[in-house]
């Protein structure tokens, strides 16, 4: 039991104030307000300052968030009501002092951009709501009101009638779903999924044609990361080996296609498709070479070794020693694109098609593997290696197989990536790539294909579309990871296990149906 709920609320206000000051110092608030104004239909010139009302909206939202956060979930109504207000006022008070400093800086004309490159006078001014004297007071009132409002909203959402209302909606949805399921003819439930596949296929065929090259670029990037995510998921999610150097396999694929398909340094010009195959094979070979010695390692040790492996590959590609063979730090330019039936097939739309086809193929292979004997063995190894072995799973074989299949996906994605960019270099294969892919799995949800797709869209697609985030990508990235770990550690779209028993018991009457004539006929 918390005896001083209001003290806790005030503490929370203090924490939020520190966070807000930090955000202001890196000019985050201007970006947020710009995005709000864009969402409401008013464009801001890039690099420009949004109007004051959008800043107010951002600050109010921030205050409401802290208010709902600081209002205690249990306890007396008075504490609940006052919790938000106290937190908001604490936040406002600290920010008011901060405002005084900002005002002083503005007045005396000191340019802090020498120290804090993002904090220009205009963004300070808009943060102060264009009110140099009254700014602190405004902030205090605004945060107090917003905090109180946030607390109220929380009380409202936790109140019985509202809860009941949401519960009713939930049951209503479930009931309707059941009704729809029951009223559907059996052929539709059986073949309906194919109808959906065809619809997705048609959309995948027509949408890239009508899109511009930029959208195609973004879609392709997301697709490549879906393939990479699925590959890494085989290694991390299914067989439980924490791999941090996944970009090495990606580099294998990319460099195979690049070296076999570019006029410089080797001028082999093998053609895209054979060299893509070579890329996949090279990635698998690299996986075997890495896998055999490190098979016995687990957990953190394996993570460190694979991390080192990824860096070794990248540094080798970059080294002066191998410049004659790999193009060195400058990378490889003018990679030839793919052809199809003798014709060039390498514009934006064509690449989107290629990527989507391979995404579909990857998902297909992944799903079949996961639900097979092999996939079950992998999951067993992940859950408890010792017991899995005592149950008859050959650990070494199983782990190595997972590593090879995962690497094959990476090699595939790497090859397409290099050909699409017409260029690849050591910087395309940095540690950050491996981290990005791992984050996709964590944010999206391990072992869940929809989760991986969702994760790839969130982490790779959204930053490309919301260009304002550009400068704050890493901040948002880190924040999102922390947020996900706290709120939803299992990912956006968590994996589920198949209900084999229920399915089996459903199947039995279905098989009997034709013999007895069937009630549906």
């Amino acid at each position, binding site marked *: 039991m918390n005896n001083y709920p209001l003290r806790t609320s005030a503490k929370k206000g203090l924490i939020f104030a520190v966070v807000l000051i930090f955000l202001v110092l890196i000019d985050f608030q201007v970006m947020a307000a710009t995005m709000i104004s864009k969402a409401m239909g008013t464009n801001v010139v890039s690099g420009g300052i949004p109007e004051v009302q959008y800043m107010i909206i951002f600050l109010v939202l921030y205050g409401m968030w802290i208010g709902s956060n600081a209002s205690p979930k249990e306890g007396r109504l008075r504490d609940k009501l006052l919790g938000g207000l106290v937190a908001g006022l604490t936040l406002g008070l600290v920010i008011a002092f901060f405002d005084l400093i900002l005002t002083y800086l503005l007045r005396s004309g000191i340019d802090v951009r020498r120290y804090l490159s993002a904090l220009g006078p205009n963004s300070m001014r808009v943060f102060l709501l264009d009110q140099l004297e009254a700014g602190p007071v405004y902030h205090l009132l605004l945060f107090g009101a917003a905090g109180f409002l946030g607390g109220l909203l929380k009380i409202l959402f936790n109140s019985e009638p509202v809860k009941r209302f949401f519960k009713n909606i939930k049951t209503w949805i479930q009931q309707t779903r059941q009704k729809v399921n029951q009223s559907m003819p059996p052929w539709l439930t059986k073949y309906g999924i194919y109808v959906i596949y065809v619809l997705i296929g048609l959309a995948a065929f027509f949408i890239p044609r009508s899109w511009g090259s930029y959208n195609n670029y973004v879609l392709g990037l997301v697709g490549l990361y879906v393939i990479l995510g699925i590959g890494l998921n085989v290694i991390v999610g299914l067989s439980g080996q924490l791999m941090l150097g996944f970009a090495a396999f990606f580099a294998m694929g990319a460099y195979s296609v690049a070296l076999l398909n570019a006029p410089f340094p080797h001028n082999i010009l093998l053609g895209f498709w054979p060299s893509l195959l070579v890329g996949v094979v090279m990635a698998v070979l690299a996986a075997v070479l890495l896998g055999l010695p490190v098979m016995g390692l687990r957990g953190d040790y394996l993570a460190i070794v694979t991390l080192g492996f990824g860096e070794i590959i990248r540094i080798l590609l970059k080294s002066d020693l191998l410049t004659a063979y790999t193009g060195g730090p400058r990378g490889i330019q003018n990679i030839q694109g793919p052809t199809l039936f003798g014709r060039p097939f390498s514009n934006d739309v064509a690449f989107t098609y290629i990527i989507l086809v391979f995404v579909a193929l990857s998902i297909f*292979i992944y799903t*079949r*593997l996961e639900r*097979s*004997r*092999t*996939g*079950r*063995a992998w*999951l*067993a190894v992940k*859950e*408890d290696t*010792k*017991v*899995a*072995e*005592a*149950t*008859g*799973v*050959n*650990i070494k074989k199983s782990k190595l*197989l997972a590593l090879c*299949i995962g690497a094959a996906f990476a090699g595939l994605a790497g090859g397409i990536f290099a050909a699409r960019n017409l260029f690849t270099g050591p910087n395309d294969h940095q540690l950050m790539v491996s981290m990005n892919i791992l984050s996709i799995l964590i944010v999206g949800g391990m072992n869940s294909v929809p989760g991986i797709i969702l994760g790839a869209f969130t982490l790779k697609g959204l930053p490309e579309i919301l260009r304002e985030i550009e400068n704050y990508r890493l901040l948002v990235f880190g924040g999102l990871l922390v947020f996900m770990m706290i709120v939803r550690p299992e990912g956006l779209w968590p994996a589920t*296990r*198949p*209900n*084999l*028993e*229920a399915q*089996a018991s459903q199947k039995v009457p279905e098989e009997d149906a034709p013999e007895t004539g069937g009630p549906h006929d």
Partner: protein
Amino acid sequence: MTDYIIEVKEVSKIFGGLTAVNQVDIKIPTRSIYSIIGPNGAGKTTLFNCISGFYVPEKGEITYFGDPIQGLSTDVIAWLGISRTYQNIRLFGNLTALENIMIGFHPNLKTSWVDAIAHSPRYYREERQTLKDALHLLEYVGLKNHGDFLARNLPYGLQRRLEIGRALANNPKLLLLDEPTAGMNINETEAATKFIKQLRDELGITIILIEHDMKVVMGISDRISVLDYGTKIAEGVVSEIQSNPRVIEAYLGPGGAALSEKYKSQRRSHA
């Protein structure tokens, strides 16, 4: 020779300076229930780990149908038909109960990952057969309609049963049960005892049992070995063990035999 399914010959297992199992000789007759008892830390589980391949004994030999098996990896030993359960339940918690059992079938299946991707007819047949067998086994261990629960969400008693189910899946000839009734109440213990007996009688499996509950041990064992400080101090049928002074001493401490005699005579005089 072949009357014994497994023979442990002068096996020693040493951890640093501690001899956990010291020159132990045990012969397990085929189709019997053989119990290994002893105070905590007597080396019972270590002996189990030696038989199932978790540990490689420093000295001695373990033969299975006359062939030495010490030093083989655990998956090969499982493939040979030796299954086990664990003192602290070790299920694959994030998989469903049914999947746990299906993993148990692993050593007997043949399809590879290529079959899985291509969905070859062989794969289809095998997978369907596995599911059928697994469902059957699920019912046999009494978990019907619990198959789709995640293993970690099952109640304790069912987890114990599921572990036995997983161990039964690869058609074992020898089953090692490490305290199968630990933490169970009287009714559950009784049911489990009956179930163990049923395994031997119906499936013809030889069972080695580690157990602390003397009622269970004395009720179903054909033969019993007693370990103390890593050494075997007694072996024989139930009545022999019950009257063995060294066993009583191991459990009750020095002078225990006399104490036990006194207790017995008191009971007799009361009656």
